[in-house]
């Protein structure tokens, strides 16, 4: 288990991390997500030991890596690090890269290299190739094999898919997740891509301005985030001011069931997929909105709907089936399906 307690790190006036505490359970796939400058990469570098925190303690599986007793140097932490573009050594072959952490005289070195290459989906024939002869995806696979070769206690992945094409990124994400699960290695991945974070994590940490804004299982963070900013960072969010009476929030889009005590004023989160859209001619129930734009997405239309007259502060986007014939300028009826989330820091 990785444990960070009260970690702070400043660069002059800029705070990279400010009193950060988090726990990454053993064998988990933890993802730290946040916008640029939020401190996520700082945290990763502190865990790796490339930089030392100004305050706080870091421990891994009960072993203190940084604290009052000093700091364990990076080469003694047994924490693997996979950089953004793999950081393969360009003067070495693929085989030498993968075998870098193995003793040179190890008798089964070549066999082990081949096994690792196979594990990440590369043929053994790649052993003699040079890094510049590989595609971006292949370079990342070699970097992963090289990191696995050291049998680390923890693997750190610094935006490892960001340089890849969209399609390849998804395939690599799945492959890396599978390989780490099979090897039973805990990992911490850093990314600014919320979709990637939600897809990869079983434990998600959202960072903002050097602070942990929210942490927990990804589904909980998406559906019941701690604050409006986290909700908006993780996906499209419609925030509706409302009054809550008897487990029902009275919002501009109608009555929505919530789990919250009665309050006169609260902010309620509705995700676009909860919004039900119907042509005005087909329904008389729900709030009235007007379609501003639409864009074709194959199986769906994405509609931008203005419901400011109904009390929704900003236009929002909703996906509807492609068969629904709605055009810009049309009036539609809007309602909310399923339970909504009330922000805990809502004004009361």
């Amino acid at each position: 288990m990785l444990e960070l307690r009260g970690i702070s790190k400043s660069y002059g006036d800029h705070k990279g991390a400010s009193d950060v505490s988090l726990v990454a359970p053993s064998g988990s796939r933890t993802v730290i997500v946040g916008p640029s400058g939020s401190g996520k990469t700082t945290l990763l570098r502190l865990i790796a030991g490339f930089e030392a925190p100004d305050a706080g303690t870091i421990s891994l599986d009960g072993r203190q890596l940084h604290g009052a007793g000093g700091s364990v140097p990076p080469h003694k932490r047994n924490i693997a690090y996979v950089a953004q573009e793999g950081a393969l050594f360009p003067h070495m072959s693929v085989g030498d890269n993968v075998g870098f952490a193995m003793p040179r005289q190890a008798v089964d070195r070549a066999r082990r290299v081949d096994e690792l290459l196979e594990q990440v989906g590369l043929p053994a024939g790649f052993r003699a190739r040079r890094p510049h002869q590989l595609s971006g995806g292949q370079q990342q696979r070699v970097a992963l094999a090289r990191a696995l070769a050291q049998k680390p206690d923890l693997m750190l992945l610094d935006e490892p898919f960001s340089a890849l094409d969209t399609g390849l990124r998804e395939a690599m994400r799945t492959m890396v997740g599978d390989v780490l699960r099979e090897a039973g290695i805990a990992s911490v991945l850093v990314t600014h891509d919320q979709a990637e974070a939600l897809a990869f994590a079983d434990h998600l940490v959202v960072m903002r301005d050097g602070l942990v804004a929210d942490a927990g299982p990804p589904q909980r963070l998406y559906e019941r985030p701690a604050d409006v900013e986290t909700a908006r960072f993780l996906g499209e969010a419609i925030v509706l001011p409302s009054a809550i009476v008897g487990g029902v929030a009275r919002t501009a889009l109608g009555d929505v069931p919530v789990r919250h005590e009665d309050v006169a004023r609260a902010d309620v989160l509705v995700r676009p997929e909860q919004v039900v859209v119907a042509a005005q001619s087909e329904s008389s129930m729900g709030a009235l909105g007007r379609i501003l734009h639409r864009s074709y997405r194959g199986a769906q239309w994405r509609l931008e709907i203005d419901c400011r007259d109904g009390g929704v502060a900003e236009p929002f986007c909703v996906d509807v089936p492609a068969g629904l014939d709605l055009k810009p300028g049309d009036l539609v009826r809007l309602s909310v399906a399923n339970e909504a989330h009330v922000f805990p820091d809502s004004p009361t």
Partner: protein
Amino acid sequence: MAVSVDLGATKAAKNARSLGSSGHPLILGAAALTGLLSLLPLGFVVYIAATSGWGTIADLVFRPKVGGLLVNTLMLLVLVLPLSVLLAVALAWLIERTDIPFAKFWSWMVIAPLALPAFVHSYAWNAFMPRFHGLGAAVLVSILAYLPFLYLPVAAQLRRLDPAQEETAQSMGKRPIEVFFLVVLPQLRLAILGGALLIGLHLLAEYGLFVLTRFDTFATAIVDQFQSVYSGPSANLLGGVLVLLCLGLLGLENLVRGSERYARVGAGAARRRGRVALGRWRCPALLLPLIFAALSLAVPVLTLGRWLWSGGAEIWRFDFILPALGQTAVLALAGAVLTTLAAVPMAWLAVRAPGRVQRTLEACHSYVGALPGVIIALALVTITVQVALPLYQTLATLIFAYVLMFLPRALVGLRTSIAQAPVELERAAASLGRPPVSAIWHTTIRLAAPGAMASAALVALGITTELTGTLMLAPNGTRTLAMRFWSYTSELDFASAAPYALLMIVLSIPLVIMLHMQSDRVEQA
């Protein structure tokens, strides 16, 4: 209205098409002519070797004197190159990678010796320690004068290396010293080889430095044969051996370099790295750049200052100095303009129409950079004396020699400048209705001009301190700064030589600034 739009569009399309053929026959012809002229020195050496006959070659080459020169030259290479590599890597690592105090200041100090021509370094040491000569002096002064040629590429490569590679190696259990030898040093190999080659070629070509340290090399022997004894065949054949040594050095570098690529893998920008904390070694580490700066800068500057002080107002003979300055300026300006113009066709082809023929032509342009100035001068002396006597010791021949000597320098700068102006910009201008010449003027020439000016300035600065070729080819009555300096130094009148040394240093300072800026641009790139 519709018709006029169509006509406009057709005209624009025609303009755009006419710019498509960047390998215009006239440009190709001009580049081919320059390439052929560049082959003259090598052709001369081959011709001499082929026509001398085995008996003459055996008599003039296989003799103890030549053996001694060979041993001297090899000793020089064997001692200077490894010591320079060690020193340059240590200095570059300290300055670029550690928290050594005043790192930026030291990066200037380490390349500042380039502002002093090698023979001025030698002059200063000769005046500072008159009994210090021979191999030891030659090795020390060579290292001090030429170390920046190694430091600059090594430091630039250290800045370019992706810090993530070193961090990854550390995370894989390698200690910092192992990371340096396993990850960093192998990736400095190309920079070290390139710098070492440059120093090696300078060692083979240098004349003034070794005359003043009283250390005989092929270059000093050739000039000696040419000037004192005027033994044409002997000088020519020694020149042949010198060319073979240059080619051997090039071949060795090529062999060791191999075809490996050490460029950073990946397309993204490398992150800036932190500096290694030296801890209690922070102050002792200062000794290395301090000692280097003391030997390479303080000794020459103090010696020069001493001679300027002791010489007083008498040594400022402006009736000599001003004409020398004027002649140097005229030669530098004319040489720079002609060299830059001569390099334009090849630079244009290299960027806009690369191909096998163009690459061959480019090799013809570039190889002369590896030939010592003494060979180029020797070739032009022999050719003009035997084939075109009216051109012997004329301004035209001297400037032509400068063009050959500095063509590669101009080509490199021009090629980079033209590459910064992609052809798409010309096409965009043409598609907006500009005729071809106007399109080129408003895009490529405007964008490439600053770089072209910079490379012309580098050529001019090179000509300002050129000595060997100028001594052998200059018309009677020519007295450049370098020639005046050399004349006084040869008579051991160090005080009278001092103003000329000072002027050459002042004129070379822009070279140092430009090289430092280029080095910084490598970091930004």
